[in-house]
């Protein structure tokens, strides 16, 4: 191992620790956002009026105009920090891939799924946010028209499970890393997390069906 010749710089560096904090906090922020997001979008199941009222409230209070870009910034920050952990070098990628295939270990696979879904979310999430935020106000009719066009239906059918998997695994992993999930309660909480992810995907699918049948 090379000798660290930077010791004249003030030590100890707290960089890694702060990055890890912010990665976790942006993760928690994005999870909270995704849950609120689900409430907004799924409100269409109660009728177009419910969703329009909620969307109108968000815009009247400027939560959409200010919150939207803020989420965008959080998203970007989270990506930059988490990407430090993603194996971009071909050699590392082949190592972790072979490692996971021989180890037969679910949690190791979950991490690969998390890193894989992350790349899809980075691209598709950005496109989605751009599309919605440059076409305010949000209304149920406009969303329904988009989805009934077909392209966006396929788009969301891919993005939905990607996001829910990433969020679900992320939630579990924050618990593990920061010691909220312990050996004694790991099994139960993992099950709870799987069920929660399943429920969110289900609500998302029901919502998409509702959009497909909404009169435009």
């Amino acid at each position, binding site marked *: *191992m090379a000798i660290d010749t930077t010791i004249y710089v*003030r*030590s*100890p*560096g*707290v960089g*890694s*620790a*702060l*990055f*890890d*904090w912010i990665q976790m906090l942006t993760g928690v922020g994005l999870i909270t956002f995704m849950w609120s997001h689900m409430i907004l979008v799924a409100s269409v199941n109660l009728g177009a009026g419910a969703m329009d009222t909620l969307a109108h409230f968000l815009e009247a209070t400027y939560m959409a105009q200010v919150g939207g870009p803020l989420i965008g910034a959080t998203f970007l920050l989270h990506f930059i920090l988490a990407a*430090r*952990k993603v*194996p971009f070098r071909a050699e*590392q990628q082949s*190592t*972790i891939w072979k*490692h*996971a295939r*021989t*180890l*037969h*270990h679910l*949690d*190791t696979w*979950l*991490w690969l799924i998390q890193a894989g879904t992350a790349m899809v979310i980075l691209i598709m999430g950005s496109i989605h946010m751009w599309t919605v935020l440059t076409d305010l106000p949000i209304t149920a009719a406009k969303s329904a028209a988009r989805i009934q066009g077909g392209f966006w239906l396929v788009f969301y059918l891919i993005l939905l499970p990607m996001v829910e998997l990433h969020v679900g695994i992320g939630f579990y*992993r924050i618990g*593990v*890393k*920061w*010691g*909220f*999930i*312990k*050996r004694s309660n*790991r099994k139960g909480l993992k099950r709870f997390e799987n069920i929660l992810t399943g429920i969110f995907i289900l609500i998302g699918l029901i919502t998409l069906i509702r959009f497909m049948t909404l009169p435009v």
Partner: protein
Amino acid sequence: MGRKLKFNIFRYNPLDSNSVPHTDTFHLEETDSMTLFIALTRIREEQDPSLQFDFCCRAGICGSCAMVINGRPDLACKTLTKELPTEITLMPLPVFKLIGDLSVDTGTWFRAMNEKVGSWIHTDKTMDPNVEEERMDNSLAEEIYELERCVECGCCVASCGTANMREDFIGAVALNRIARFMLDPRDQRKEREYFEVIGTDEGIFGCMGLLACEDVCPKDLPLQDQLGILRRKMGWSAVKHLFRFG
């Protein structure tokens, strides 16, 4: 009649320039309470005297016989063949330097690790052999002992995706070792000194919580719980540090 076992064993001798990495197949009939130690010894005695592998205590105490058994790192001496399917694939532990076939050099790695984390009690008190030892609360002694049980087999390191990808990651065993000394009231190191060793991406913040270490450790050390505790402690330590020095 016992089951017919088929062994696929990794073979490579780095000292022999004609040797290329490959697997050899051996067949054995299973006997009562056969362990992988017994199986490998029989293969070496009856079929191929050049087969290299490590054993010492044969009782899961010394940690020298760790290898990758059907994909998972474990101690060969305490693995019964009857717990495995009839086809058994044996590989040397990754991450560590290969000596030959199933034998790896964990010693050099562990020595470097122990030096890096300062794996001894740091104190400026000198020992007086004539006075009675300082007493320690029994429950604390047990807590320390729980972390002290590590046999340095290397399974946790070999199973860790992070350690496989990044050579500089110190691994669950080193983090557990630090946790052990943090508990010990005789060690006079301050939180800040521990932070210097593990408060980085090579230390606790590099751990991605994949928990393979927890799931393979043959001695069932509470690695998951210790990693969680360390991340919190070191996380707070960084925050305090930030506000103290601006």
